[in-house]
């Protein structure tokens, strides 16, 4: 049954009355602001011209041929576009007296301040929580650091790969029969930090709505992954057992894994739980003999004999495409899905219908496809409204229109290199 949109969609975004000053950089620091912006918050990304967000140098360039001058490349980076959509962008030099003055004016009209500077830096810049409180007592401040604001390891520097190693996650991923650690560095840890940060800010906003009080949130990016690893942590706590690489093993599902299909590097995922599913699986694949095989008679035997069962299944799946396997098995009530690459995900009818991809036009790099936001609210859904800001793109809008700075002062600040 479909979730029907509310008949009276409020036509508004849930956080449209919230303003966020976003000093975050890289991925972990920018995702909280992104999620809030997706839900309608007015998020102002603040960058210093001398120290732009590293993603403006670090990530790939979209449609390089469209760059007119070298500086354009700063605005045409993939990760910048992905995590800064729906945000306005300003430039501000905080290490000047005029910069300090104007940032105070911005703080006064903001509800939330987010940073991932690292311990001690926001204090030097005069925008740590005690300083923020003096300007606006009900401010909500989120500081994201790799390991937390204090502690023996607070000076840890690290990116997503480091976080995967520090959280214990990296030791759980990979093939059990390989000895080298898996050198795969997806961005899951960055996203976990960003999503946990957004959660914490939302908790603070709920509290402030009822009491008028703000607060300081100290978030550890590494802990944002640790708290998702319940089973192996509890197993160590209970039994001193240290979990290692899991491969595609599952303790209760058999068969369970990915199997090769027709085509280059094409796979299908299959998972079987109950005996009924197993029988339907054997039937649907035309392998009734497996259901009678001593080695596979029940789940325990199938788990024990995985090494013999998996190659037999692979032999069968190799004769079909991943879509064929999926449709055949799903019709028989067995869990199977194709392993999709990015192009396939984009073209997939299911994700299309669910509206997960959004086309936007970026002023410099042109058309691009962004992934949407998965929080489906019936009356106030998120919206991907506009692309990531170019460096200082909204200086006029923010300083002159929103803050009300007269144009002489604005020009003066530009000349002095403050903006």
């Amino acid at each position: 049954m479909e979730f029907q949109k509310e008949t009276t969609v409020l036509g508004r975004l849930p956080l449209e009355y919230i303003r966020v000053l976003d000093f975050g950089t890289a991925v972990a620091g920018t995702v909280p602001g992104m999620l809030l912006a997706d839900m309608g918050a007015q998020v102002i990304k603040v960058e210093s011209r001398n120290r732009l967000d590293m993603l403006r140098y670090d990530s790939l360039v979209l449609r390089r041929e469209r760059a007119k001058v070298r500086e354009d490349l700063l605005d045409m980076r993939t990760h910048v576009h992905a995590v800064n959509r729906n945000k306005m962008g300003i430039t501000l030099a905080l290490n000047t007296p005029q910069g300090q003055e104007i940032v105070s004016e911005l703080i006064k009209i903001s509800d939330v301040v987010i940073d991932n500077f690292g311990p001690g830096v926001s204090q030097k810049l005069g925008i740590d929580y005690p300083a923020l409180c003096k300007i606006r007592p009900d401010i909500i401040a989120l500081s994201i650091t790799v390991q937390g604001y204090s502690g023996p390891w607070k000076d840890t520097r690290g990116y997503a790969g480091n976080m995967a190693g520090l959280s214990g996650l990296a030791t759980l991923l990979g093939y059990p029969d390989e000895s080298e650690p898996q050198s795969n560095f997806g961005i899951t840890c960055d996203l976990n930090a960003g999503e946990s940060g957004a959660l914490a800010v939302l908790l603070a906003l709920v509290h402030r709505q009822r009491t008028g009080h703000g607060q300081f949130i100290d978030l550890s990016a590494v802990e944002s992954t640790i708290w998702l690893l319940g089973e192996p942590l509890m197993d160590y706590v209970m039994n001193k057992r240290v979990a290692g690489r899991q491969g595609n093993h599952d303790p209760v599902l058999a068969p369970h894994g990915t199997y090769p299909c027709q085509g280059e590097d094409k796979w299908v995922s299959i998972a079987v739980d109950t005996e009924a599913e197993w029988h339907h699986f054997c039937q649907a694949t035309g392998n009734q003999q497996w259901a009678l095989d001593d080695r596979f008679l029940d789940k325990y035997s199938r788990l024990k004999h995985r090494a013999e069962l998996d190659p037999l299944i692979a032999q069968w799946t190799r004769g079909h495409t991943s879509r064929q396997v999926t449709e055949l098995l799903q019709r028989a009530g067995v869990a199977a899905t194709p392993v999709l690459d990015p192009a396939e995900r984009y073209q997939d009818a299911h994700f299309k219908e669910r509206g997960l991809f959004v086309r936007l036009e970026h002023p410099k790099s042109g058309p691009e496809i962004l992934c949407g936001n998965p929080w489906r609210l019936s009356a106030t859904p998120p919206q991907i409204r506009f692309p990531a800001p170019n460096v200082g793109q909204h200086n006029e809008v923010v300083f002159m229109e929103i803050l009300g700075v007269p144009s002489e002062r604005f020009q003066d600040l530009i000349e002095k290199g403050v903006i």
Partner: protein
Amino acid sequence: MHASNSGPLHWLKVVELGSMVSAPFCAKILADAGAEVIKVEEPPGGDAARGYGPFPSDIPHPERSGLFLYLNTSKLGITLNVDSATGREILDKLVTEADVLVSNVEMSRLEGWRLAPTSLRDRFPRLIYAHISPLGGSGPYKDYKAYQINSEALGGVVEQVGHSGREPLQMPFHYGGYEAGLAAASAILTTLLVLGIEGKGQVIEIAEADVWVTLQTGIQFLDYQAGGLPTRVPRKAEQTALSRTYMRCKDGYMLVSMPQLAQWRRFWAVVGQPEVADNPRYQDRNKLPQEAAQELRSLVEPWFMARTKEEIFYLFREARVPITPLMTVADVVDSPQERHRTFFTEVHREDSGPLTYPGVPFAMSETPVHMRQPAPLLGEHNAEIYCRRLGYSIQELATLRQCRVI
């Protein structure tokens, strides 16, 4: 500015109809934040996580499952057979008093119980109803069967774990369920803010596969449009150029990564070979020929092998270079940093003895979020909820049990 112990959601009432990971994790976050969460478990066995483990000494016991204990802290627990007509009546009474209902029960069962979100919302216009499922309630796959690995295969994570040349891998230990629960908790908080202003509840739908596609892999989607990033990670990617690679050391591995030039210079100073930082042969780090990359590794391999993770980590923290240890779950639980942050809490409960639980990854200065009480025993709060709140007598409670309503 004052600190209170009651949590930011101390006024909130939640009913959870969930099992295993996604809905229970979502409700746990709300419960640890102070909400009153009534977890409804179906008799006789309750939440399937009670049978899942891990168990102390590997002896199964429904009150000692590590997964259940972790995911259900701070909640009240009741048993209720929602298949029975009386059971549904009772659930209605509970939902009447609640602000939020969160569930990961299959939609077909919910429809059979007249608990499909839209029909429930007609009766309770202020209710926030969050439903979590692997693939969602719309689209060609809405009736597909999917376990974790199947949502991940669609969502893209499976192509990122493991490497080319062999089978793609899952994210183990119900990782996707946690991601879905986390998304649901944030979505619920957003709707609470709307409720506070407009007085209107909403229906929230969270699909695990959506979370993978949009957030967990979606952030990299533009990289494919820019023609970068191979679909599968090649084996031993970047293992040679001292860039995002693991180096063996005396007692384990260190992850070596130093994208910035200043970090590169400080690295070579720490390992006692500052001249290498200026050597033109190694300047263009992104385009090193194979032999040059291999040379760099040989230059530092002995230095790493002579030192422990702790020693190396200390040196590079001081030098502000992102070189960090590969930690096992044991290292994480025993970590001095986490001890300082009191991230793990020890809890004593009758049936399970002292256990150390992970907490939440953030410290809030005014409204701390933390475990308030251990996970409930099966039906532990039946008397409190049914008798004290709903007005049943103890005898009626016994009858309800005999009639398999609770």
